[in-house]
């Protein structure tokens, strides 16, 4: 039987609802409307014209940027999750309680500084005359082109999402029922097999959600592709800025933005469905 809606319940739920309507639904609806506006002589005019959609979807460069962005974000999710898992696993299962608290604190610290500043500081390490190439030079190697490469962009994505992914993975790992692991060991299951057969399936929801967050952050990121990747290959976020530089074409930029939002929603639904697959309440 459904509970009746009470004033007490509304007091706590309404602010969230109002917030979502004001700052998510309204802007999103405006973005949809904007994508049908037209631009004449640098001035946007309210209109209902599909020209922006047909133009953007008809351009090869759009689909190229879409594919690139999707592939980069997927690669970032896989790479970050793979690198973060041993870290989260060690914090969850190998450290004492106090050491674990310190580790969590260390993972939170990066959020104290601006992401832009952290990315700029990577330039000092990665440039041809940077710290890494200087050190390699001491042993007679290099210089290797590290900056303005896809690899550098990936380092930026890791900088952005690695601490968050570790934390999200950690929260799912610490809540695993330890008796399941003990049972596996009692049944002569090796350490590695226990990780793959017991730990990962048990923490699946958290691991998938962590990877999803990494995908979302990387898919929309502008800073790393520009300041570490040197603006190439063109990602959708770069294409948005390019489009707005072409005579105030905000409606076309809105088409790109809406496509990105749609993609992220589909990926999020698919990820959540996969995460909870087979789970019952």
């Amino acid at each position: 039987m459904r509970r009746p809606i009470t004033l007490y319940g509304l007091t706590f739920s309404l602010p969230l609802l109002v917030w979502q309507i004001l700052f998510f639904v309204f802007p999103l609806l405006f973005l949809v409307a904007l994508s049908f506006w037209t631009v004449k002589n640098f001035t946007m005019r309210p209109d209902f014209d599909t020209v922006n959609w047909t133009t953007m979807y008809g351009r090869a460069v759009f689909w190229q940027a879409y594919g690139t962005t999707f592939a980069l974000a997927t690669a970032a999710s896989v790479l970050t999750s793979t690198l973060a898992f041993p870290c989260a696993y060690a914090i969850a299962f190998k450290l004492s309680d106090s050491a674990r608290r310190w580790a969590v604190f260390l993972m939170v610290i990066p959020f104290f500084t601006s992401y832009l500043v952290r990315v700029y500081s990577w330039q000092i390490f990665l440039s041809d005359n940077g710290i890494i190439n200087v050190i390699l030079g001491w042993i007679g190697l290099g210089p290797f082109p590290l900056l303005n490469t896809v690899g550098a962009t990936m380092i930026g994505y890791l900088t952005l999402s690695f601490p968050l992914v570790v934390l999200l993975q950690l929260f799912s790992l610490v809540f695993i029922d330890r008796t399941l692991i003990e049972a596996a060991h009692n049944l002569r299951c090796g350490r590695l097999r226990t990780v793959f057969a017991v730990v990962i399936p048990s923490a699946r929801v958290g691991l998938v959600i962590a990877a999803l967050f990494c995908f979302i952050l990387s898919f929309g990121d502008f800073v790393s592709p520009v300041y570490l990747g040197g603006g190439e290959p063109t990602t959708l976020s770069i294409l948005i800025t390019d489009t707005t530089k072409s005579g105030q074409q905000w409606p076309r930029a809105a088409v790109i933005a809406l496509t990105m939002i749609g993609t992220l929603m589909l990926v999020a639904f698919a990820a959540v469905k996969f995460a909870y697959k087979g789970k019952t309440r």
Partner: protein
Amino acid sequence: MSRIDTAATGLTRRSLLATGAAVLATPMLSRRAFAQATELTMLAWYGHAEPDIVAEFEAENNVKFVPKYYTGGDNMLGLISQSPPGTFDVILSDAEYVQALNEAGYVEELDPNDYALADYFPEFQNFPGNWADGKLFSMVTRFGFLGVAYNTDALTEAEAANYNVFWDPRLTGKVGHFDWHLPNLGQMSLLNGNANPYDIDEAAWQAVKDKTMSLRPQIGGFFDYGGTFSSLNDGQMLAFCGIGDWITGVLEKSGAKVRSVIPEQGGLQWSECFSIGKDSAKADLAKKWIQYITSAKGQAKSAQMAAYPALVPNQKGWEVLNAENPDEAKRQGMTKEAGNVIDMIRAGRIKYRQWPVQQSLEDWNDFWSEYKGS
């Protein structure tokens, strides 16, 4: 215990409170006097309302500038179109955007008699874009040239003085683009020998596209303002297309080994112009500012702006600059010596950066996106 005789000291509780209140209120009064400075809103590129430029004018006129900085002409037009009329008292615009400002009715008409136009070099007295139907809408304040920016350790000035240097095998992966189609494609058009680089027919436009595409393997990145600075400063990029002294001048002053040169195929000119915003409630003060910044004294300041240096069109401004800072005047080529920047303009080596005439802006931008993605 002794008591203070209030009658003898003349200090009553009431007078003590009154004096105390007056003392406490004094800073508030002075703060109020300070707050009376008139606020003047300025829409401009970064640097134009910083103390090195505006402090003297602010002190002399009891004005406080409230700047709104933009990053590019499209951004500027967007900010104006989204603001009610009268929001911006003074508007700085790149020359190619002045006509758009004028057509949209965003700026007030100016009276030529209010300004020291007679002190300007003749080339700037009837500056294109500032005038429409014989009416003045904007005053060109500063300008600069775009050529080849290069690392002086990697290239000599003679090597850099040709756009073909971008294809030099030594520079593979080391050529950077300032990420805006207009200056880059304009330079490619100059390299292809187009006398009017932005007024080209379809065949010439196709040739510009082909030539540009052939440069793609050399390119190490596409950079915004900050990225351009850092990649030149740390030697990551050894040559740059689409910029000039407005970036390398700042780096050069701080000791970086970079310079700009106008290649033998010619260079492009950017120009910044001041206008008074439509329906400004402080139009008189805005006019006073434009008078100041276009005067000899203001022009010398503008030439040495900390954010980015520039050339100035006022001949008397050159005289003040040469008296104040002869080294900077010489570095920028604003001296009476032969081969100065005005001579370069008169020799036809410099073309205005402008919007494409025979293609749409969109065509150029679309190609730029394709070029970047290729």
